[in-house]
């Protein structure tokens, strides 16, 4: 069967690619566009390591087909830092030691940004429920919650 030709925007850049019907957005990002920052932990939408935003909405890229994203705007972990400057979330994750192995970190950062875009001053509980779709096995979540809160405070100060 012929491959699908897809044009989309990834981290502000126009991209075009060919993909099989069964290929997920995660497959396309990792294998075709070589953006390996999004990770595959489960391929079933349970771990959140592949989190990206699609037209601003937080999704598991393993649950989106590559051929579905035509004309849409995708933001991945690779687009989080602005030029040489890390995003406040990235800085705070480092300052708070909110990562150990780091495999879940891209997904947590993308999901946290999506949270802070909607809620600039989330409570601990709001952070924990928003991030409940992202599994971390190393940290016990404590330092992640602290980092997100601290980043929110920094962003509020502008």
């Amino acid at each position, binding site marked *: 069967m012929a491959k699908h030709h897809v044009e989309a925007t990834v981290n502000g850049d126009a991209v075009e690619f060919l993909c*099989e019907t*069964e290929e997920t957005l995660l497959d396309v990002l*990792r294998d075709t566009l070589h*953006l*390996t*920052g*999004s*990770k*595959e*932990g*489960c*391929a*079933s939408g*349970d*771990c959140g*390591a592949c989190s990206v935003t699609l037209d601003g909405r937080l999704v598991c890229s393993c649950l989106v087909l590559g051929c579905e994203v035509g004309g849409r705007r995708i933001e*991945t*972990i*690779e687009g*989080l*830092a602005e030029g040489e400057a*890390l995003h406040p979330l*990235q800085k705070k*994750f*480092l*300052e*708070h*030691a909110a*990562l*150990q*192995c*780091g*495999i*879940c*970190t*891209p997904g947590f*950062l993308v999901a946290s940004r999506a949270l802070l875009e909607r809620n600039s001053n989330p409570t*601990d*509980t709001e*952070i*924990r*429920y928003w*991030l*409940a*779709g*992202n*599994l*971390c*096995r*190393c*940290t*016990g*979540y*404590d*330092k*992640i*919650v602290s980092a997100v809160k601290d980043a929110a405070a920094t962003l509020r100060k502008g």
Partner: protein
Amino acid sequence: MAETQSNGHGYVGTRTIRPDGVDKVTGRARFGADFNLPGQLIGRVLRSPHPHARIVAIDTSKAEALPGVKAVITRDDFADQPSEFIPAGEMMMNYKDVVRNVMAREKALYEGHAVAAVAATSAAIAKRALKLIDVTYEVLPHVIDVVEAMRPDAPVLHDDLFTAGVEPKPDKPSNIAKRVEIVLGDIEAGFAKADVVVEREFKTAPVHQGYIEPHAALATVSEDGSAELWCCTQGHFIVRAHCARLLGLDIARIRVTASEIGGGFGGKTVVYLEPLALALSRKAKRPVKMVMSREEVFKASGPTSGATVRVKMGATRDGKFVAGFAELKYQAGAFQGSPVQPGVMCAYAPYDMENVKVIGYDVVSNRPKVAAYRAPGAPISEFAVESVVDEIAKKLGLDPIELRMMNAAREGTKAAYGPKFGPIGLEETLNSIKKTEHWNTPLRKWQGRGVASGFWFNIGGETCVSLTVNEDGTVSLMAGTPDIGGLRASLAMIAADELSVEYDKVRPIIGDTGSLGFNFLTGGSRSAFSGSMAVVEAAKQIKADCCARACKLWDLKPEQVAWERDRVRPIGDVADKAKPMSIADFAKVAGKTGGPIVGYGRLNAQGAGPSLGTHLVDLEVDPETGRVTILRYTVAQDAGRAIHPAYVEGQFQGGAVQGIGWALNEEYVYGADGKLQNAGFLDYRMPVASDVPMIDAILVEVANPKHPYGVRGVGETPIVPPLGAIANAMENATGIRFTELPMSPPKVLKALKEQGVTAK
């Protein structure tokens, strides 16, 4: 040269930014599945659908004929290995079993056991090829449960497995691989002195390490038999050793690079895909990449044992433990080698007791072979003992912390497993828990509070690092143990302090197997402990070398020159004869004074100090659903000396939450057909952010006298106390002693109903 002395910037004990941090928050860090090579093929594994079956025949001809398929491998591609036990990874290893676990030979021994593998030009073709492999199975009766597997009429997995450790030697094979025991004093005499005796039987479910990164390997083997391998592992030198053995290659011909590792917890100390990828690449003469699916991780990589444990403890009226007995039956999975031995040794380790007897059985059944999981074996036996300790406290009307304090092991206590302890920090952790606001806060109805302590030995082992002073005075640090959670930061801090250079001027990397001498793996809480000792050793060499160079530059005798505080100085009468030189000063003249300045720290680190901890938990039980919510959690643990306090706290917090999962939710669920029913994160429910509270971490620092900075390993112990602490809190909340893990909602609800518990 005079006595050298270090007094650097004092980075140790501070919260530096990890050197590998930026790569990990930008997506740049390369994990196992992120490596690719030109011309690579995709490898896939055909796995047994049966829990126990004889493999009568494997016909791969149709798969091989499929266009795009470049290699198919089966048992025929691996030479058989003799039965001999060698120490490797976290347990003794028998290559006869290893070769059978990576690729089934006579029999498939669990659902998911690898039977064949293919390499093809695309994943889709590889998948199609698997369907074309024709395996003829003779399905055999299976056994899953450990107690059932021990019965005389149970289906026997291995015809040549005769129980070791019993006299006389059995004349019939069985699933009981081994009986082990430790005996201290005389438990009969001890129980005779007891005023109160508590005996209970416990059951724990097998749980998976649950690392988020599935196993991945990329291999390329050239025509002359040289091989390169990239994989996510806790020990690339161990991977090299196993692969050399399984593929019949010289060790020097295999170069293994450890990718960044996305969690391991003990589960990435053994090989699964690596030898298959190498064998496929050798056959196809092209690079082969293999990545496990999550389902494969659950079905075919190591969980830790489920177990049945019987504990009987006696105490006097005033609370002195006088006797402890335990019998542990641990699942090993399809091949022998459960962590029952450390389970036996740890069971009563936190306590000062004269009479202890612990018996352990290592039992095979039709499950995936267990792998190490954080303090392997200890959480299970210590859960049972800590539960009984709590019951004794209740019977005697004693405060559970006081009772533990009264019996706590301390410096000079003879451990139940033999030797006397050096300085250890159990009492300090109990004291600091007792002083918390948490311990002294009132609870409401349906809420409960529990406390439990835990012990783990910690280890050292073979370690090699290099420190290179670069031309500009910066320092390159190379370690050979994968950085699983802040190792680079810890080692860079030690190097910076030892050499008096700025932390940011030290760049640590993890070298491949061709770049350093042998390193044992990251595990047993050894990498920061042993690595920092090796860095100190390497820095010592550099300082001595600089002193020697200074002697020549300044025309002074060795005793007139010393490393003091932060640089090499002329000392004594000649103190003003020359301008002291820092590491950066020597860097500038390295070429003119003898060439590169390099230190190699290489040692077999000894002197690992045990780490003990105490956990305190508050929880609430919902009587309508049986759901348990963790309300508050405090960990106190002896770190010896925390090199990087934030990453030490992280170990405490992460271990506690893994323990919460083990206690409340996680389990392998098998159907009557012997197949795993919950091989995915949706049904194998690990704690998510909304399940847990903040985890307060109290760093207790009782210096380990055998380490130059007083460091103890910290990574294993945090998973030991949670199971007991939570069970004790459940008893406190409901009055019911839960003896079976996980304490999942259906079980809790059933118990509440059976006991007619409606109020505290």
